């Protein structure tokens, strides 16, 4: 029992001093003077507002990606005790005293620093020498662009960290595979691969590329296992299931959990509410929920309702009418029905209220008990304030002449009878007898006479001319045009009408709704909606002053000015180490050419390098060149605004390739001793130049010290670099 007393407790620790030293150097290079400058630097202005919203628990939609990255940044703010009170409006604005700059920037900087030892480990796991591994780590350490990107409240360094972590864990897992399958560490690294992948995807969708690459590599490795007759069918199945669990199921669960935390944290209504559906908005505290709280759920004959267009793009709007009529003739000479205008109006207004009327009865109040409206029922919609009926007919609409005009019927023209019957079709019904529900039901109104569908044709953002007060057009669209969200409406505000007389009713319409039911959306419903919005929401694509095209990145023909001191010439740029970038390109080229050469020769059964060196060479290429390609090439197909920092993950992989190629050259191509020593001498010279460039550019990497105008001009090594020079 007490056996441990009989022997001394011995802890044998093995410390890789290389690794330690690299970590420390990484930490120093990334953390040194972290809270300088005490001003908003570049995209901090973008991410900062989300951090503030997290602190205040206010709901927002960030269309640039999933929430995990923003959450990590917010964690930094939370640890630093940030209260969220800062107006993120301008790059270069001084931080107020309540902003914990250091802790906000800490997590990205730590992630950036840890990339250095990760690079070291990856090369070791790829079975390259310690020397090569050291080289890779040092190149990452001295890469100015990675340093700049890590030192601020930005997401790329976190993304790169998780990407490298995923690659490293997969390599560790794969190397363990041969002798100790299903051991503890085997499981650990396998699971860590999945977790790191999902974190990378959770930070930015770019992480998806590396995740796919790792999945493909895992698939390839498993394919080789299938061909291996040493595995029984059962053990193969176990291997397959373990991989599926760790690399597919767990990442998906993690991804969902990010959103779960996101939605749990943010429960208050906020600036992006109107992008979401009414049901979603009602689930947030404040905002719409305050209005809709306690509304009757089922729409009945006599209900007073406002109808919101489900599309919500380019802005949310409600079905609206007012006493003005369509002009007799439009500017282009076409005629109209000259009846009362019906539009879609982007603001709350008493003219947005409509009353659901049974065509067979005259009364406009809800009977007792209420008679609910069901799917397929025919109704009339009466405009609350003017008591005219919603109507459409075969007259060309003002802006979309191919569609029917929608009006509120006035009997001006005897030859044109009222056509004001509409069939209610609930699109998200469960059965054909479903009741029309407030907020929840998505409804389509089909015109009985012409089978046209009520539609807000505001997709283009084109609004009616002056006579329509620049409100949005509403038309009757042929049903056959297929499903589109602009044809779908939902009831937002709702109350049971009680007033018999028009005067009373107007008073009633002006009063706020109050009654009592609460609506809760399930997590999955909220998740699907939010995810869909993130993917489909598009900001207008405009060119930024510092945006660039993917082709500029390889040669680093572009830079980004991150910050400029308000008075002196001190400034921070995203600007890489040009020697490293050039060498990385050369390495990729050399690797590709050599591999092709070897491949062709091997096909002819000529083996230039021993089999033991070939395998690591191939897998290193698969990871590094593959990683570079998947993180770079897709940008050529993207239509969004691109910046130099999008290239950094690809660059990281490319840098890892440099020592791999160098070691290969020295091991296999420098056959004589003389060549070898010459090669080493060249290496030293080359590495010194890397360091020299790093130190030359470190003033614009760290923002200190301030340089004079001539020094700045000297730094402009390429004409296309935009170094800011203050006019004297």
């Amino acid at each position, binding site marked *: 029992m007490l056996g441990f007393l009989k022997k001394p407790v011995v802890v044998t620790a093995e410390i890789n001093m290389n690794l330690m030293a690299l970590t420390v150097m990484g930490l120093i290079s990334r953390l040194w003077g972290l809270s300088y400058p005490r001003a908003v630097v570049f995209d901090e202005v973008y991410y900062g507002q989300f951090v503030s919203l997290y602190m205040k628990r206010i709901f927002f939609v960030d269309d640039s990606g999933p929430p995990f990255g923003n959450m990590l940044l917010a964690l930094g703010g939370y640890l630093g005790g940030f209260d969220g009170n800062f107006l993120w409006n301008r790059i270069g604005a001084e931080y107020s005293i309540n902003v914990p700059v250091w802790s906000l920037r800490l997590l990205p900087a730590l992630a950036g620093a840890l990339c250095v030892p990760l690079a070291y480990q990856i090369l070791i796991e790829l079975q390259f020498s310690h020397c090569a591994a050291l080289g890779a780590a040092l190149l990452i350490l001295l890469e100015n662009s990675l340093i700049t990107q890590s030192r601020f409240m930005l997401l790329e360094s976190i993304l790169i960290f998780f990407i490298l972590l995923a690659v490293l864990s997969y390599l560790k897992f794969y190397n363990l595979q041969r002798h100790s399958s299903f051991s503890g560490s085997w499981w650990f690294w396998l699971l860590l691969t999945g977790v790191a992948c999902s974190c990378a995807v959770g930070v930015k969708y770019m992480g998806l590329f590396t995740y796919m690459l790792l999945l493909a590599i895992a698939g390839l490795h498993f*394919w080789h296992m*299938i*061909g291996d*007759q040493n595995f029984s*069918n059962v053990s193969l199945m176990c291997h397959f299931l373990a991989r599926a669990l760790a690399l597919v199921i767990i990442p998906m669960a993690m991804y969902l959990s990010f959103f779960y935390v996101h939605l749990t944290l943010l429960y208050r209504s906020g600036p992006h509410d109107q992008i979401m559906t009414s049901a979603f908005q009602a689930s947030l505290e404040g905002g719409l929920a305050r209005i809709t709280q306690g509304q009757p759920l089922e729409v009945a004959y006599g209900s007073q309702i406002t109808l919101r267009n489900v599309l919500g793009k380019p802005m949310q709007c409600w079905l609206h009418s007012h006493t003005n009529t369509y002009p007799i003739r439009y500017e282009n000479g076409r005629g109209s029905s000259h009846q009362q205008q019906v539009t879609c109006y982007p603001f709350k207004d008493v003219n947005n209220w409509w009353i659901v009327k049974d065509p067979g009865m005259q009364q406009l109040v809800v009977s007792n008990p209420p008679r609910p409206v069901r799917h397929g029922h025919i109704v009339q919609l009466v405009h609350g304030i003017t008591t005219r009926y919603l109507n459409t007919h075969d007259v060309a609409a003002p802006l*979309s002449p191919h569609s029917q005009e929608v009006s509120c019927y006035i009997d001006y023209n005897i030859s044109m009878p009222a056509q004001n019957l509409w069939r209610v079709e609930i699109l998200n019904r469960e059965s054909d007898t479903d009741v029309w529900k407030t907020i929840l039901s998505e409804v389509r109104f089909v015109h009985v006479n012409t*089978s046209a569908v009520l539609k807000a*044709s505001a*997709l*283009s*953002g*084109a609004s009616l001319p002056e006579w329509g007060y620049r409100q949005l057009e509403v038309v009757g669209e042929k*049903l*056959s*045009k*297929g*499903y*589109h969200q602009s044809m779908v409406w939902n009831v937002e505000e709702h109350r049971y009408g009680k007033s018999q007389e028009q005067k009373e009713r107007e008073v009633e319409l002006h009063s706020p709704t109050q009654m009592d039911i609460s609506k809760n959306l399930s997590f999955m419903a909220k998740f699907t909606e939010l995810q869909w919005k993130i993917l489909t929401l598009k900001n207008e694509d*405009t*060119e*930024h*002053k510092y*945006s660039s095209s993917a082709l500029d990145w390889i040669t680093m023909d572009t830079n980004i000015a991150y910050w400029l001191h308000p008075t002196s010439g001190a400034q921070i740029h995203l600007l890489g180490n040009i020697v490293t970038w050039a060498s990385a390109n050369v390495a990729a080229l050399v690797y590709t050419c050599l591999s092709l050469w070897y491949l*062709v020769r091997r*096909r*002819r*059964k000529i083996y230039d390098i021993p089999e033991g060196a070939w395998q690591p060479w191939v897998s290193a290429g698969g990871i590094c060149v593959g990683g570079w390609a998947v993180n770079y090439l897709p940008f050529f*197909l993207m*239509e969004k605004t691109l910046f130099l920092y999008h290239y950094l993950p690809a660059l990281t992989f490319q840098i890892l390739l440099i020592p791999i190629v160098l070691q290969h050259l020295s091991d296999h191509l420098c056959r004589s001793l003389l060549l070898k020593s010459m090669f080493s001498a060249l290496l030293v010279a080359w590495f010194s130049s890397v360091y020299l460039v790093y130190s030359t550019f470190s003033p614009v990497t760290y923002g200190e010290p301030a340089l004079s105008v001539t020094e700045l001009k000297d730094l402009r090594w390429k004409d*296309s670099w935009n170094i800011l020079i203050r006019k004297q």
Partner: protein
Amino acid sequence: MSASDCHQPQGRPLTSRLGCSRTAADPAGLHLPACPAPHPPRTPSPSMRRARPGAGAPRMPAAGGGQAELGPRGGPLRQRESRRLPGGLARPAAPPAPSAGPARPAALALVTLLSFASRFHRLPEPPHVCWDETHFGKMGSYYINRTFFFDVHPPLGKMLIGLAGYLSGYDGTFPFQKPGDRYEQHNYVGMRGFCAFLGSCLVPFAYLIVLELSKSLPAALLAAFILIFDTGCITLSQYILLDPILMFFLMGAVLSMVKCNSCADRPFSASWWFWLSLTGVNLAGAMGVKFVGLFVVLLVGLNTIYDLWDLLGNLSLSLVMFGKHLLARVLCLILLPLALYTAMFAVHFTVLNKSGPGDGFFSSAFQSQLIGNNLHNVSVPEHLAYGSVVTMKNLRMAGGYLHSHWHLYPEGIGARQQQVTAYLHKDLNNLWIIKKHDSDTADLSDPSSPVEFVRHGDIIRLEHKETSRNLHSHQHEAPLTRKHFQVTGYGINGTGDSNDFWRIEVVGRKAGKLIKVLRSQVRLTHVATGCILGSSGKTLPKWGWEQVEVTCTPYLKESPNSLWNFEDHINPKLPNISLDVLKPSFAEILLESHMVMIRGNSGLKPKDNEVTSKPWHWPINYQGLRFSGVNETDYRVYLLGNPVIWWLNLVTIGLYLLIAVSTAVALKRGVQLTTELEELSRVVLRGGGQITLGWLLHYLPFFMMGRVLYFHHYFPAMLFSSMLTGITWDALLKFCAGFLSHSTTARKVYRGGFLALVLLITYSFYLFHPLSYGMIGPMASDPSSPMAGLRWMDSWEF
């Protein structure tokens, strides 16, 4: 040319050499992908042997006698037998040709006949312009009239349409203004007939491809029937469109590629050369009709790389031999298509020598070659003078004329001043007046005042003739290229400010020299900011009428974007001199026309509120295209695939993936397969794989395209999908039947399954044929319509 046939029985005298199969004496070690491995000479298992003729019998009585020899994959086997027993198996009717028996030619004849019958049935109906006929018919007329035009597609398809029209007696006078215009006395049937002819060829092509890949007659028949009875394919083949022409070349390329593969055991033989070069010809044809042809080029390219890689690994082949293989492919698949492709452009430019609607898309130099263009045999004042009215053309490929109009830049985009754009069409708003920076035109318009020429280095103002505003720039961001400055029209009646001053310079000239119209490449530098007037090539949004952005770039890089030349030049005071503009070389014209086409293609962006067709709609047959007629009384034709066929195709793709993956895993696990199954798995993986690759290549890229997409873009992929259906179901039925071997049920299952599929397809065609052959009467949404019960999806609009 008898040597051309690998399989067809016509080449009988040569067949002993030309058959795909290898004799047992073949050099070992050659892996021939498309040819089955040699089997020991034995008769196929009886259950399988009878399967095919049974299935084929109801349609082909001629096949009845051949049961004894025709195994499902019996072709190669039988060849060997027949070679060993010359004269056939005591059956004088059966020719001793490879893979024959009367069944195959008869089947081929049958499907060809059916195909032609279905495509030519009611061809002249409706006698009015349908859908895109308005474009392609018009372009055919342009060729007959030799009028120059511009289109986003390469010229071959339209040239062939024009040729067909010319040969059939169409005189090119019908205007093809809009869909629905009646043809009246004009002869349009020739052009439609040409397209229908090519469209009909798709079926025999598909039949031959599948036969070659699977060596199974039922598979080939199934694929052929699917295409024959697909309403979509019929409709698309019946009108004057590019698609049947494109698909003809595409399938031709695949067919010759497959044929060439099966001749791989006899490299450098006449038939091998024939098929290889035919592949190249077809590739050029496909590329020459539409750029979508690029996908089939990719398919053939990948296949060739695979092939070469295989050859490289074959150590019995010397490197010299390999080099020959490589050279032969470079010659036939790269150089030959390139030459043909260039040749068709040469024909295009030779035929179209008259000025027409497409002139403005091209450079001044090119335009000067078109008869009737204002630059042809031009005579203008040679040197630029103050007071002249000019147009300026940007020198970038497909650059426009400097243009302005009354509309202002919208609020929030730079200063709210008049827009200045680049516009590709000739227009009065392209006219500018050249003025001195310090004096007005008033004294210049006086006829008595002396003419003063503009010199290199002068500072000038440019006044827009229609609106009397000056060309102006200032330090506001340009609308799209934010790094550049905005260019506007500013001032009233020619009075502006110092931001209207531009220095005019000619590239490669010294100060003080005169500026030549058309020849001088001119740069305009803004005096106040030092930026250069240029066109960014980006299309402005709606507010800018989708014209091209003009900016002032502070980056002084020399590029055609920032160079201009003067094209029109009007100055009554100067004598007109005839100029011979530098004639552009053919290579320049070729490059230029490609730039224009590519730009035109990427410019076909969907309008903001247009509900466009999405690629995922296509395989599920979600929504069709109205070819003709809208209302109840119209003769309506609706392009929609036969839903039964399309959904069968869709299911089959999933089924195929399942089968292929399980087969591959089984092979990788080293499961011992019987000879039949091994053969079956080869067909599924190799043959099916090629077809699937074709489908992917013709479908996936559309997901990444930004341009407007239409339903008919899916049809090339649909051809591959249909062939895959033939192969997959045949393999599946054989596999199922294989479990029941040595019993009559096996044969019944196979035969029954095949028959059921064919009957299903035929019956669905009977239901849906009005889609292609025209419907009159109430719309299908009306319950009284005969089609009412057939509107299975709400999105169909017939």
